[in-house]
């Protein structure tokens, strides 16, 4: 870019110099005339007359300096552009096709490349693994402290093994106001295991990680910059975190990434206590990561860990759950892209398919153009153009076309990426870091130029023959066959894309329209987490909740208010089903998976719109009871009692000798995300004497009429009440619908993109089909004319053209159905409540394709049927 600018500047300077030289000549000649006695004006005129055309001279000088090949190139480009202007359709469609192909594939590949192929930002990243127990509680593997301590001591497969706690919210005092941050408790060797070193200060030491060591912290680079202006004086200083004094010892590197991709503001030593009794450590959860020894594979590491896993299972996992817990050792990349892997491959596959369709289209268009130009080339050869000149000319045309497509493709890629970033749900595909990958762009550009050159050159490479001049010869049979195969391939790929899109759309439709078991409309939620320090005791929490309930229960415009510790579509951590005891019944079956539970106030069911199917709702009178009554979800009731009535039965939920009475059965709700089947669930009333409240809370408000204005004022009221209780407590207020909708963002985004690609692919295939048929009709005009003159009816002619289209389409669709079966294996994990072989989706895809193909074939066949034999035979 810079050299180009310099070149332009130099060029302009030289132009001025040439001009100056000619002016100087004129001045000298005028001087000479004046010296000879002419008046000044006359002298200048004479000088100009003697010199002749200034511009012609300048042009001649310029010509001296332009090298001949540049001149020829410019001429070729001008010629090519003139050619495109004469028949703009082919050029425009080719450029648009390339733009779509290059743009979409560059944008998507830029997004999925870091996920699927790029190295992780750690040295020797392939040695890093995530390991632990995988149970029904969590999608990802976890560990418990007691097992981890054994593994850490006895493992042999890893050069380093490290652990961290799940993220926890923490409040940093910045001046007088707390700032909510994300804190992680990690082992001292955490950074070292990932091969990172602090950007400033020091790493944690073994002493920092002792159980009762004073708290120290590593702060993130971003926090260092935003809160402390990047000043190194913060090192060694004390900050106040959750009302505790913490010394900052170092700053994380700017590019540091948590292994599970969380946002970390502050790292603190986790200070595991090996001296605690085993059962205390076995209910304390961790994530564990490790670095393999050189030359050790993941499978070998897993084998060597197996005895330790068995041992830990026996010691730390409740017997009822053992058969449901597995050992997982997997690469860090697999852990990171866990939930986007299928989506990434799906996107990658569909954009590759689109690229193939685009390539086939360009090839087809250029081949058609080439065939049409044979006559022109033969003519030019006949009047003396050398073969080299013809080849150069077609090459230039192809390159101009490829270049145009490339530039348009870059612009498309940029636009598409912008669109992805706007539309993509938070966290999906790590799009906040997405940018156009220059290597990918260069590759696609090179590919497009190569393709354009290859197919564009076809006519020039064959020796021009005199027969072509007659215009009799259509393209040779071999090349038409190749083009028909291209069309069929396009149809096939389009069908695969369409099937994928219709599967995803059907799945999305089911997802959007499924019964949730509750009525999210007109419900506003306010969620919060109390601070550990101030609300560490059950009494403090109970007092807070009681006061909060009193303040929130009579807000204007609210018909029903309730308090819970969590709400669907997610549940709590859940408890093993097998913990439950029923008075007067044999023990429940083992391996029953997890049961969700919530602590709710009496009007929870009314506020959420959950139906009570049997028995009764909680009442305010119940809250005075010594033990909380229970309402079961209908699935749980059926599982525990079968046909027997659960109402009035007494159960013990947590093996703690507290026996509670079942008062009702509520309808099932979607409590495990939107796609997974609902878990069984029970509800416990928040009685006055309760000591079991967690620090999490959600206030629920069902409103009578909902508008933007009423929502804004309700938000104001809610905030004011919370602020009156604890001004520094962060509260998230949003509608229930927004919360539920977040679970649909990802499938919606993916379905949108795949549908977009399928539509583009379909349009390209239609253009291809249309182009080839039109070309055939144009080539056979004379033949058609003869047939019509001999008595063929227009309908026969149209049918003949349509038959061509039909044969290629059917061939393509047969191949496409085969391809779609392969697709179903990729798409399986992305579908909700429909089978990958869903006949309706396939039928829709086929129908759409047939309709579009018919449309594309109709116009050329109509034109063929309208051929006037008289004009056709006079042709040429």
């Amino acid at each position, binding site marked *: 870019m810079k050299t180009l600018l310099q070149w332009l500047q130099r060029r302009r300077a030289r132009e001025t110099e040439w001009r100056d*030289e000619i002016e100087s*000549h004129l001045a*000298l000649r005028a001087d*000479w005339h004046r010296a000879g006695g002419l008046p000044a004006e006359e002298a200048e005129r004479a000088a100009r007359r003697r010199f*002749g055309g200034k511009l012609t*001279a300048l042009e*001649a000088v310029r*010509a*001296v*300096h332009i090298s001949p090949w540049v001149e020829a190139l410019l001429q070729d480009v001008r010629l090519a552009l003139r050619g495109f202007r004469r028949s703009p359709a082919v050029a425009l469609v080719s450029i648009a096709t390339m733009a779509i192909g290059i743009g979409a594939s560059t944008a998507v590949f830029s997004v999925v490349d870091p996920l699927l192929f790029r190295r992780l930002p750690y040295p020797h990243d392939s040695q890093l693994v995530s390991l632990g127990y995988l149970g029904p509680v969590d999608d990802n593997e976890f560990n418990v402290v007691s097992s981890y301590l054994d593994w850490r001591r006895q493992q042999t497969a890893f050069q380093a093994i490290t652990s961290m706690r799940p993220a926890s919210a923490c409040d940093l005092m910045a001046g007088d106001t707390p700032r909510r941050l994300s804190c992680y408790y990690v082992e001292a060797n955490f950074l070292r295991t990932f091969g990172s070193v602090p950007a400033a200060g020091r790493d944690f030491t073994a002493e920092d990680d002792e159980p009762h060591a004073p708290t120290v912290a590593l702060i993130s680079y971003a926090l260092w910059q935003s809160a402390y202006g990047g000043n190194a004086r913060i090192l060694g200083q004390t900050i106040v975190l959750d009302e505790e004094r913490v010394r900052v010892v170092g700053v994380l590197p700017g590019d540091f990434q948590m292994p599970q991709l969380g946002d970390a503001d502050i790292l603190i030593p986790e200070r595991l206590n090996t001296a605690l009794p085993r059962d205390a450590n076995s209910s304390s959860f961790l994530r564990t990561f490790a670095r393999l020894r050189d030359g050790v594979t993941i499978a070998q590491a897993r084998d060597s860990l197996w005895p330790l896993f068995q041992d830990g299972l026996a010691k730390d996992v409740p017997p009822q759950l053992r058969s449901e817990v597995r050992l997982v050792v997997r690469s860090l990349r697999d852990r990171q892209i866990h939930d986007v892997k299928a989506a990434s491959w799906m996107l990658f596959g569909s954009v590759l398919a689109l690229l193939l369709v685009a390539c086939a289209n360009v090839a087809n268009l250029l081949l058609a153009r080439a065939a049409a130009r044979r006559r022109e080339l033969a003519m030019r050869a006949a009047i003396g153009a050398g073969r080299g000149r013809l080849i150069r000319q077609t090459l230039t045309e192809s390159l101009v076309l490829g270049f145009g497509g490339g530039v348009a493709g870059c612009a498309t890629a940029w636009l598409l990426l912008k669109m992805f970033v706007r539309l993509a749900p938070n966290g999906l595909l790590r799009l906040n870091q997405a940018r156009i990958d220059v290597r990918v762009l260069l590759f696609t550009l090179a590919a497009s130029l190569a393709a354009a050159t290859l197919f564009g050159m076809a006519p020039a490479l064959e020796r021009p023959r005199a027969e072509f001049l007659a215009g009799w010869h259509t393209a040779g049979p071999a090349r038409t066959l190749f083009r028909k195969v291209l069309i069929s391939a396009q149809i096939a790929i389009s069908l695969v894309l369409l099937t994928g899109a219709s599967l995803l759309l059907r799945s999305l439709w089911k997802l959007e329209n499924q019964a949730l078991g509750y009525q999210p409309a007109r419900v506003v939620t306010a969620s919060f987490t109390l601070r550990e320090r101030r609300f560490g005791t059950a009494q403090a929490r109970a007092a807070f909740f009681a006061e909060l309930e009193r303040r929130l229960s009579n807000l204007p415009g609210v018909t029903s208010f309730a308090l819970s510790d969590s709400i669907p579509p997610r549940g709590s951590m859940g408890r093993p089903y097998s913990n439950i005891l029923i008075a007067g019944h044999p023990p429940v079956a083992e391996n029953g998976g997890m049961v969700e539970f919530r602590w709710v106030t009496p009007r929870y069911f009314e506020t959420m719109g959950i139906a009570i199917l049997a028995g009764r709702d909680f009442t305010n009178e119940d809250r005075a009871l010594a033990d909380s009554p229970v309402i079961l979800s209908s699935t749980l009731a059926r599982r525990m009692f079968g046909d027997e009535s659960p109402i009035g039965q007494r159960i013990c939920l947590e093996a703690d000798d507290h026996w509670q009475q079942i008062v009702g059965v509520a309808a099932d709700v979607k409590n495990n995300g939107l796609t997974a089947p609902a878990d069984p669930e029970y509800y416990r009333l928040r009685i006055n004497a309760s000591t079991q409240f967690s620090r999490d809370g959600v206030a629920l408000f069902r409103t009578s009429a909902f508008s933007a204005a009423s929502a804004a004022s309700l938000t104001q009221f809610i905030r004011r009440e919370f602020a009156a209780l604890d001004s520094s407590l962060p509260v998230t207020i949003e509608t229930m619908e927004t919360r539920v909708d977040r679970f649909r963002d990802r499938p919606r985004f993916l379905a949108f993109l795949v549908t977009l690609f399928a539509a583009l692919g379909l349009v390209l295939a239609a253009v291809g089909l249309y182009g080839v048929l039109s070309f055939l009709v144009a080539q056979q005009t004379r033949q058609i004319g003869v047939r019509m003159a001999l008595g063929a009816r227009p309908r026969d002619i149209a049918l003949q053209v349509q038959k061509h289209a039909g044969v290629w389409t059917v061939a393509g669709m047969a191949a496409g159905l085969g391809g779609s079966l392969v697709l179903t294996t990729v798409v399986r994990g992305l579908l909700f409540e429909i089978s990958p072989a869903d006949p309706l989706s396939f039928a829709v895809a086929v129908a759409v394709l047939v309709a579009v193909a018919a449309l594309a074939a109709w116009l050329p066949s109509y034109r063929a049927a309208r051929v006037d034999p008289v004009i056709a035979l006079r042709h040429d």
Partner: protein
Amino acid sequence: MKRADHLQGALELLLLKTLERGPNHGFGIALHVETVTDGLLRVEEGSLYPALHRLEREKLIAGAWRITGSGRKARFYSLTARGTKRLEEAESDWNALSKGVKRLLRFA
């Protein structure tokens, strides 16, 4: 040395020969040719500069801006070593050609 166009060759010869006397600008060259040949030869001024630039590109002459005796800025050209060599060749070529043409005219 192959020359497709002897007229162009002649112009080149005139320019080089003029510059053999010392550096000069385009107008000076044109004036010199006219005066020395008593107006028999007249340099076409429009093609003078393309020719000078061509010679300069071939590094037979070198150009630089200077001030003329009358105080005007002008681009002065001087002969390079390569130019001197080329002039010798061109002179002998020309002599051979003109000798040939003269004989032909005499015996025709």
